[in-house]
């Protein structure tokens, strides 16, 4: 069919069953937006390109479908950069379509020209610059394929302005043929047999569940493995929700702000089975002393993750759907599960002791709204069933610690890059993707202000996002480090809180509430969660509350500072 490049983009998105675009128009994408207008393609106009890309990221994390973003050339494209890096670090599938100046103007420092392909090379799985209209359908087909297969990630397709107007006989390829891209699905089964032998021998095994499980939708396989073997598990920040926090064998978050039990278990275990994890420095603490007594097993789809940080004794490459299903089969067929679970008893006894010795806790302060209590009550009122979207810093860690996650894809957070300003727009996108779910944004006053313009988008589309601001009037996590390691010299972390967040929300059309007394928390949350539309609640919390426990930077996991009760 004869059509313009812009129409070809729209047709390609239809072929990919793209439900919605998050974007922001501009000069270089005028023709593209005209084609959206013509086709009435669903589009969420955010108030900043960064809002659009975080929204697409939240949509992708919550739904498992690729998020699609559009922006114009130059500043439109560069405003996406933080969001692209955020998605790249957490392996989130996004297809980002940017306009570029016309082919004849490329390389001449033209108006609104930026080499977005060059800029995004280190933070994309792949990227393209399209200068010929004939390449467009093939490139888009490849972009979606690359973004969503193997280890997912963001793909940028930069399209020169005149390509949108040029004519093409549209044909969308059925298949992708890339000589250099063959994502692994099946790995080596023999490795799993070897692993099975180690699993039978292990006296102190530990499953370490990461974000790869959420991304690959293999929570059922992990749960089956836990049931069969009786192996205890811990999770990375990105692995939350894969197995219910209420499961007796789930000992919670490991790492810098992990539980005492999880960190001690990692230090003492004799077999550590990492599943879809990256062994990030926030997890390992002092790398040389990480899991010092354990044989380390690493399940991953990305061979480059093996031995990147932690030396691996057994590597299980392949899609987790393949490897975990096989391991579940082997466990079912070969293991004497009863005997194994019996054998596990002393180890579990030890783990439970650690858990009861030092559970996650905090000290309530008279007359003060405690952030941990806010999370606990959100948890209770939503019964662990909400989609929790956080910003970065203390709000993120308290949410991770005190919300009891039950479901995969119910925890959306910028784990790898640690992007402030992520929460509100990502929550917006998650709500677009999951209109029937309760989406709760847990943010801070600092992070909210970084993308507060998206309150307007939330109001415009009447997205029932519940925005909980843990407002301590400081950049809490940085201030905590200043308190702990810089002698309380609070260099530029005091936000002073001069802005009335309730008025700010209301000015943009989102109802606002404020909570200053602990006895108002529950009632206000009940009211807020029951409201049909969006709402922002400004919780005034103490400015000097710390996230505890904490492994100081560069320390061993068992050298954690406890705090709490």
């Amino acid at each position, binding site marked *: 069919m004869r059509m313009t490049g812009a129409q070809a983009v729209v047709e390609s998105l239809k072929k990919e069953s793209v439900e919605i675009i998050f974007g922001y128009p501009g000069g270089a994408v005028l023709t593209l937006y005209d084609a959206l207008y013509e086709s009435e393609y669903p589009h969420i106009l955010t108030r900043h390109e960064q809002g659009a890309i975080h929204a697409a990221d939240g949509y992708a994390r919550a739904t498992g479908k690729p998020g699609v973003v559009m922006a114009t050339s130059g500043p439109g494209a560069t405003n996406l950069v933080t969001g692209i890096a955020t998605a790249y670090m957490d392996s989130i599938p996004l297809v980002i379509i940017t306009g570029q100046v016309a082919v004849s103007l490329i390389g001449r420092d033209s108006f609104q020209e930026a080499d977005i392909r060059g800029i995004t*090379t280190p933070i994309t799985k*792949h990227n393209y610059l399209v200068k010929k209209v004939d390449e467009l359908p093939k490139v888009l087909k490849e972009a979606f394929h690359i973004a969503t297969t193997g280890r997912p990630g963001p793909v940028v397709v930069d399209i020169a302005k005149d390509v949108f107007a040029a004519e093409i006989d549209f044909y969308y390829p059925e298949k992708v043929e890339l*000589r250099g891209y063959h994502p692994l699905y099946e790995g080596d089964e023999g490795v799993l047999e070897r692993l099975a032998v180690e699993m039978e021998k292990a006296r102190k095994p530990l499953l370490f569940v990461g974000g790869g499980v959420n991304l690959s939708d293999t929570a059922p396989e992990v749960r089956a493995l836990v049931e069969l073997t009786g192996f205890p598990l811990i999770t990375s920040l990105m692995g939350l929700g894969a197995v219910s926090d209420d499961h007796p064998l789930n000992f919670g978050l490991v790492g810098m702000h992990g539980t005492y039990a999880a960190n001690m278990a990692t230090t003492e275990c004799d077999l550590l089975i990492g599943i879809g994890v990256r062994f990030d420095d926030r997890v390992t603490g002092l790398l040389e002393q990480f899991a010092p007594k354990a044989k380390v097993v690493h399940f991953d789809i990305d061979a480059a993750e093996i031995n990147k940080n932690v030396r691996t004794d057994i590597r299980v490459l392949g899609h987790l759907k393949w490897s975990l299903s096989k391991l579940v089969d082997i466990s079912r067929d070969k293991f004497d599960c009863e005997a194994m679970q019996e054998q596990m008893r002393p180890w579990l006894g030890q783990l439970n002791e650690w858990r009861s010795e030092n559970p996650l806790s905090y000290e309530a302060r008279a007359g003060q709204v405690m952030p941990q209590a806010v999370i606990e009550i959100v948890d209770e009122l939503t019964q662990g069933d909400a989609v929790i979207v956080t910003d970065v810093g203390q709000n993120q860690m308290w949410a991770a610690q005190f919300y009891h996650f039950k479901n995969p894809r119910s925890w959306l957070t910028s784990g790898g890059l640690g992007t402030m300003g992520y929460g509100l727009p990502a929550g917006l996108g998650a709500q677009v993707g999951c209109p029937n779910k309760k989406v709760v944004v847990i943010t801070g006053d600092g992070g909210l202000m970084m993308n507060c313009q998206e309150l307007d988008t939330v109001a415009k589309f009447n997205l029932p996002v519940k925005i909980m601001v843990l407002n301590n009037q400081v950049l809490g996590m940085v201030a905590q480090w200043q308190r702990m390691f810089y002698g309380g010299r609070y260099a530029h972390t005091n936000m002073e809180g001069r802005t009335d967040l309730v008025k700010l929300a209301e000015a943009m059309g989102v109802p606002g509430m404020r909570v200053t007394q602990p006895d108002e928390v529950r009632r206000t949350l009940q009211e807020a969660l029951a409201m049909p539309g969006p709402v922002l609640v400004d919780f005034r919390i103490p400015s000097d509350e710390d996230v505890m426990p904490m492994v100081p930077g560069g320390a061993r996991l068992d050298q954690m500072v406890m705090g709490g009760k």
Partner: protein
Amino acid sequence: MKHTLAVLVENRPGVLTHISGLISRRAFNIESIAAGYTEEADTTRITVVVEADEIELEQVVNQLSKLVDVIKITDLTGMDAIHRELALIKVKASVETRSDIVDIVDIFRAKIVDVNRETMVIELTGEETKIDALCEVLHDYGIIEIVRTGKIALSRGPIPAKEL
């Protein structure tokens, strides 16, 4: 230890940027990198010499392999392979020193590709050590400038790198 990798990539704009960007971002120690066309019009072959232990080498290979435009990587280090580099050396050559330099060039089986009243340009193909040795000897006469291609390598026998 030094490793010589044959990296076959798609012959597309931006591929070298992807590769060199990855190398610098991951802080790999690359000694040389040489790229050129191959027997297939759509394939470029890049020879990378990297200083790495086994674990680092695994990271280099795995990270490079992840690039969508990288088709195949073969480690030619342990293999029976021919390693060559080309150098052009511009050296001061007066009437007095010219015949000495010609003798040296003969010994090294190099070639004189340009002569004028003050200088000569010498072309030498060989292994890195041979080029180093010639440069050292010519140093006494006054080297004006040197350009080297970086190493390229090819395995012996009938099997091409893409099938190794």
